[in-house]
C-alpha cells in the first residue's frame, strides 16, 4: 500500500520509510514562522528553554503583519519584541514595514515555502502552503518556541480526504467559491485532524493564486493541511523565487484515502458564507439584495494580484455606493507595486475604494476597518465568527473578490455580472 502526500512528507522528515495515520512522531521542520501576535509568547517560552540560539537563523521567519503598522502602544511593544529578537538572533528572514506583507502572501512570493517541505507557523492559515505541495500547518506559540530551539515538532500523521473537482466553472466562479462550497458541504469540523488533498482538472487549471486561496481555508474545515500536487505551474512559479532546491512529493496511485469526495463544479454559483460560521454557505442568489456597510478586499485568503485584478474588473467605471466603505489590502508590497503598474490600484481608487498598505488588520478585528454594532460587511477574508471584525453584534459575509467588489458598487450583495460595464 502506498502513501499519501502528507504521509510521505512527514516520513521524509522523520527518517522513516513508512508512516500511517495515527502515528505520533517527531519530525524535522524546514521553516518556523511567527507573527507579531504569536511570536512574543513564543520568544518568552524560547528563553525559558535555556538555549541561547535558534536552531538555524535561516529557518526562522518573523513577520509583523497583524497589528502593524503598529496600531497602539501595546502593539508597538509586541512588534519591538520581534524586531529585537530578529536582530539578536541575526535572523535572515525578518520583514520590516516596507518589505512586510501578509505572511501567507509573502512566504510563497519570497520562495520560502517549497514543495515537499514542512513549515510550521504560529498562525492557523499556515496551511496556505499546501498550494505549493508543502506541509504547512498552524501551531501555537509554544510549538513555535520548541521548534525554534530544536528544529523539530511533534505530529500525529493525519488521514487524508481526497477532493476531486471536475467540470467547467461558471463565469465569476473561482477558487474562493470552491472552497466555501466545500466547507459548506463538509462542515467546519468536516476535516478535523485530517489532511485535505485538492485534486482534479479544475484544480490543475487554477492559477497559483487560486490554489493558495483554496489551501488557505483548509483550517476552516478543521484540516491540518490542504495539499495540492506540485506541477509545472508550481515549478514555473518557483523559478527565480525558491531559496533552495526542493524535492516535490506526490501521493502514490495506491495511497489509502479515508474518503473521496467528488464535486461537479458546473453547478456551483458564486458562494456566500453567512454569519457566524464559514460552513453557513449559500449560493449568492439566496443572498442577493442584502445591504452592506463595508466591503473588505484582501487578506491571506484573497490579497493576491489576481484577486485585486478581479475586483478592479468589476469596479472599473463604477463608483462605490455612498453608504459603503470599500477597503482594499494588497497582500504584499510587491503585489501592491504590481497592481500599481497594471493600473489596478488606479481603477480601485477612481471607483472610491481606500487602498491600504498590507496588514491583516480588519480580518481579525484588529484595526483598519472595525465594525460597529449592527453593521454588516462583505469580506474576502476567511472567518465570520461572532465579533470577528469588530462588535459582537456586527456581521461578516464571506465572498470572492468579484462579489465583494460588486457589493461595494451596489451597496448590497449582487452578482458581479450585473455590475460589470
Amino acid at each position, binding site marked *: 500500500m502506498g502513501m499519501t502526500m502528507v504521509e510521505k512528507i512527514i516520513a521524509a522528515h522523520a527518517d522513516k520509510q513508512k508512516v500511517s495515520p495515527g502515528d505520533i512522531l517527531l519530525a524535522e521542520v524546514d521553516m518556523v514562522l511567527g507573527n507579531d501576535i504569536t511570536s512574543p*509568547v513564543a520568544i518568552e517560552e524560547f528563553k*525559558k528553554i535555556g538555549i541561547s540560539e535558534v536552531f538555524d537563523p535561516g529557518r526562522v521567519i518573523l513577520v509583523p503583519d497583524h497589528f502593524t503598522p503598529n496600531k497602539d502602544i*501595546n502593539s508597538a511593544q509586541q512588534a519591538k519584541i520581534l524586531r529585537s529578537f530578529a536582530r539578536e538572533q541575526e535572523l535572515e528572514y525578518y520583514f520590516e514595514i516596507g518589505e512586510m506583507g501578509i505572511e501567507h502572501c509573502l512566504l510563497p512570493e519570497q520562495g520560502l515555502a517549497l514543495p515537499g517541505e514542512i513549515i510550521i507557523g504560529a498562525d492557523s492559515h499556515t496551511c496556505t502552503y499546501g498550494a505549493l505541495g508543502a506541509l504547512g500547518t*498552524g501551531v501555537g506559540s509554544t510549538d513555535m518556541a*520548541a521548534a525554534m530551539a530544536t528544529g523539530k515538532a511533534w505530529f500525529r500523521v493525519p488521514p487524508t480526504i481526497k477532493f476531486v473537482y471536475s467540470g467547467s466553472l461558471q463565469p465569476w466562479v473561482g477558487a474562493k467559491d470552491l472552497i466555501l462550497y466545500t466547507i459548506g458541504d463538509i462542515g467546519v*469540523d468536516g476535516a478535523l485532524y485530517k489532511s485535505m488533498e485538492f485534486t482534479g482538472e479544475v484544480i490543475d487549471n487554477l492559477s497559483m493564486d487560486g490554489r493558495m486561496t483554496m489551501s488557505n481555508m483548509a483550517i476552516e474545515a*478543521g484540516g491540518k493541511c490542504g495539499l495540492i500536487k506540485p506541477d509545472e505551474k508550481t515549478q514555473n512559479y518557483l523559478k527565480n523565487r525558491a531559496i533552495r532546491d526542493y524535492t516535490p512529493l506526490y501521493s502514490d496511485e495506491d495511497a489509502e484515502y479515508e474518503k473521496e469526495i467528488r464535486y461537479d463544479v458546473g453547478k456551483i454559483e458564486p458562494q456566500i458564507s453567512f454569519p457566524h460560521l464559514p460552513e453557513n454557505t449559500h449560493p449568492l442568489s439566496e443572498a442577493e439584495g442584502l445591504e452592506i456597510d463595508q466591503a473588505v478586499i484582501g487578506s491571506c485568503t484573497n490579497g493576491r494580484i489576481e484577486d485585486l485584478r478581479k475586483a478592479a474588473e468589476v469596479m472599473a467605471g463604477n463608483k462605490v455606493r455612498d453608504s459603503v466603505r470599500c477597503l482594499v489590502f494588497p497582500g504584499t508590497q510587491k503585489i501592491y507595486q504590481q497592481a500599481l503598474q497594471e493600473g489596478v490600484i488606479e481603477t480601485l481608487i477612481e471607483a472610491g475604494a481606500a487602498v491600504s498598505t498590507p496588514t491583516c488588520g480588519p480580518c481579525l478585528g484588529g484595526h483598519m476597518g472595525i465594525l460597529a454594532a449592527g453593521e454588516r460587511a462583505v469580506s474576502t477574508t476567511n472567518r465570520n*465568527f461572532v*465579533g470577528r471584525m469588530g462588535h459582537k453584534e456586527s456581521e461578516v459575509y464571506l465572498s470572492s473578490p468579484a462579489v465583494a467588489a460588486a457589493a461595494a458598487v451596489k451597496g448590497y450583495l449582487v452578482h458581479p455580472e450585473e455590475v460589470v460595464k
Partner: protein
Amino acid sequence: MKLSGKVFKYGDNVDTDVIIPARFLNTSDPEKLAEHCLEDLDPEFTDRVTEGDIIVGGKNFGSGSSREHAPLAIKAAGISCVIAESFARIFYRNSINIGLPILESPEASRSIEEGQKIEVDLQEGIIKNLDGGQEYKSEKFPPFMRDIIQSGGLIEYVKREQLGRH
C-alpha cells in the same frame, strides 16, 4: 490527580475569537487576557468563574485562530479542565503544550449540564457527575502526549529531553 468544580456549559464550535477576541491580543499577559475570557459569548463568565471550575463544550472546541492566548486565558481565569466532544487541532496541541488539562468525551459533553458539580480523574480519564452520579470515560492520551503533560508542558519536556541538541 483529581479535579472538581462547577460546570460552564457551551455549545459546538466555540472559537478562539470568542474565547479571547483579537482586540485584546495586544498583550500576552495571561492575567490581562483572563479578564476578557469568553466575553463575547458569555459576558458573565469572568464574574462567575471560581478557581477550579470546568468548561464543558460541544464539538470542535477552540476552532479558528492558532492564538495560544485562548487556552492561556482560560487557564488564567481559573478553569482547571476543559471537556468537549472534540477539539480543534491547534487548540488541542496548545492546551497540551501549555499544561491546560483537556479531555474528549462525547457522552460527558452531551449529558453534563450547566452549573453541575463534576469531578475529573485525569490519570484514569474518568469524569464523574457529582450531581447526577453518572460516570463517563474519556479517551486516554497516547504515551508521547502523556509525557508532555506529565512534564508540565512542552517547554519543560524539551528542557528535559534537550531534543536535537545533545
